[in-house]
């Protein structure tokens, strides 16, 4: 089911089955364009499939926005090793709640996307890694998988192609870090989810030391539409190099928060005002965190911007996972910064020292600040610490913690200083704790 009213301004190409009765059943799927794309793909060469994806300019919906066609092209197809197709449904980026809807309402669309990936690299096994908290989705996806076996869309000799493909669900057990692709693979192999050194990338050495396609749930879910309608049609929905639509997850201080499917490049202010009904209680917009909690915050005056990967990168932030947290004028940015860094300190796997120590130090300094014991010099110390974490870790979690923290300080320095003055006037400054 949906948990919010859809908007008439949505362009539904991966969410259009959500409102159908029994939308998870294979009969509904088959009656509504289901498993048409895989039939087309089975008649295509891997090169042609990858070319079609490149034309579509589909980019990874998990956060990094890497071009999907290029990612698939990196997988060597003649190593003699088995190959794997992995779906990242470990959705854990604060602000993001879209993969949940895709699996809850249209699991066959995801399975079909994985089938096309599997055929492209002649893989025989796919795994859907679903975060542990989404237990009810494992039941839904398992039922869909069983139906697909019954109708011959999974299993042996799929649609007479002579090709076999199995798909399984795999539960996580509570770890944000496992959304990072190499940590996910470690977790899939039964270990602690710590990231691997790259290169080699998962395309070459992925699951079980073998070549692997690893994409986000929403990315796979877009693939069937592309093969039914053509890569060019998909590309045309979005902006240059940012094809198609995406599920934008809006939360925070708007009148109508929700998940809405919109073309890439949809203007942020139209999303807030026309789709989400503006800021609630007649307040003014203060800022938007545009792509999950790891994306640097945008001040209100920076929000006149199209929502695509390149426009947001140009504004020194990112489209990330499509989770937009809208904050009104009353928001305490210091409290948001503290809650953000508490999260990253909790989720740091501890493998890389700059991340393990950096997130913990930042948490301690920001906690001290928030509790009234901050020092003027802390403001620069936070910026310096964050700067020293950037680019110095195996995976992006260190960056994901440092980037938003540095932006909170750079863009809302005045609020941090006001906090300092406020706390100075009401409390005595405690001794500087060892951090």
């Amino acid at each position: 089911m949906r948990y919010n009213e859809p908007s008439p301004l949505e362009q539904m190409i991966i969410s259009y089955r959500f409102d159908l009765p029994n939308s998870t059943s294979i009969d509904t799927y088959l009656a509504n364009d289901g498993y048409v794309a895989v039939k087309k793909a089975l008649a295509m060469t891997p090169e042609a499939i990858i070319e079609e994806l490149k034309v579509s300019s589909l980019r990874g919906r998990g956060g990094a926005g890497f071009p999907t066609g290029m990612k698939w092209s990196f997988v060597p197809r003649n190593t003699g090793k088995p190959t794997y197709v992995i779906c990242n449904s470990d959705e854990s980026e604060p602000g993001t709640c879209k993969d949940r809807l895709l699996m809850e309402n249209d699991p066959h669309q995801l399975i079909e996307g994985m089938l096309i990936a599997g055929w492209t690299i002649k893989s025989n096994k796919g795994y859907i890694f679903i975060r542990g908290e989404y237990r009810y989705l494992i039941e839904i996806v398992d039922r869909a998988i069983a139906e697909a076996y019954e109708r011959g869309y999974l299993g042996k000799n799929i649609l007479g192609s002579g090709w076999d493909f199995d798909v399984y669900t795999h539960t996580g057990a509570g770890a944000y870090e496992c959304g990072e692709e190499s940590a996910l693979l470690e977790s899939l192999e039964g270990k602690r989810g710590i990231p691997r050194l790259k290169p080699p990338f998962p395309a070459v050495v992925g699951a079980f030391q073998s070549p692997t396609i690893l994409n986000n749930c929403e990315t796979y879910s877009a693939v069937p539409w592309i093969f039914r309608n053509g890569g060019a049609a998909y590309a045309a929905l979005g902006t240059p190099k940012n094809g198609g639509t995406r599920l934008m997850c809006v939360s925070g201080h708007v009148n109508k928060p929700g998940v809405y499917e919109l073309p890439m490049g949809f203007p942020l202010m139209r999303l807030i005002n026309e789709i989400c009904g503006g800021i609630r209680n007649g307040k003014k917009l203060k800022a938007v965190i545009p792509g999950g909690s790891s994306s640097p915050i945008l001040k209100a005056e920076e929000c006149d911007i199209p929502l695509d990967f390149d426009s947001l990168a140009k504004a020194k932030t990112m489209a990330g996972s499509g989770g937009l947290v809208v904050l009104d004028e009353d928001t305490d940015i210091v409290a948001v910064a503290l809650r953000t860094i508490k999260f990253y300190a909790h989720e740091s796997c501890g493998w890389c020292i700059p991340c393990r120590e950096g997130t913990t130090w930042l948490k301690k300094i920001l906690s001290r600040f928030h509790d009234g014991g901050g020092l003027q010099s802390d403001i620069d110390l936070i910026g310096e610490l964050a700067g020293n974490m950037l680019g110095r870790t195996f995976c992006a979690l260190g960056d994901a913690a440092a980037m938003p923290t540095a932006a909170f300080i750079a863009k809302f320095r005045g609020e941090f200083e006001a906090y300092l003055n406020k706390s100075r006037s009401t409390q005595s400054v405690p001794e500087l704790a060892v951090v």
Partner: protein
Amino acid sequence: MTFSPELEARFAKLLESYPTGRQRSAVVPMLLYAQDEIGCVTQELVEEVAHRCGVTPLQVDEVIGYYSMLHRKPLGKYHVQVCTNIACQAVGAEELWDHACERLRLGNKEVSPDGLISLEEVECLGACSWAPAIQINYDFHHHVTPERFDRLMDALANGSYSKKAS
């Protein structure tokens, strides 16, 4: 150890899911599914999972501290998880968390003396657009106000709670 027929079937399917010689992959799912049935990860379970997956007990042991959903001590019959991350924070989750502690007289990760309820402050649950969100065991509850929280807790206490996804 013996488990329910349903769990045994799940284990059998899990062990078949992974490539030959890669049964270690089943360690984390087995621990979580078994925990749901027996209440927590006991030393006996660690050894059982190690045996079934063909790994050492140490290889099972070492993952437990990493995954926040795996617990060595029993949770309450109902594990109440309150998200306070930024999307929920923006719409009152910190106040909801304080209210939850007060109402249940529990702190973070504490279990009520009768074993009925445990409470945990958790990270993002994936319900940001319908915040504030909590989970009771695996059930999501969206748009949770302190009043709605109280009604849910009343239902847990008097046995009338029924599972629903939102």
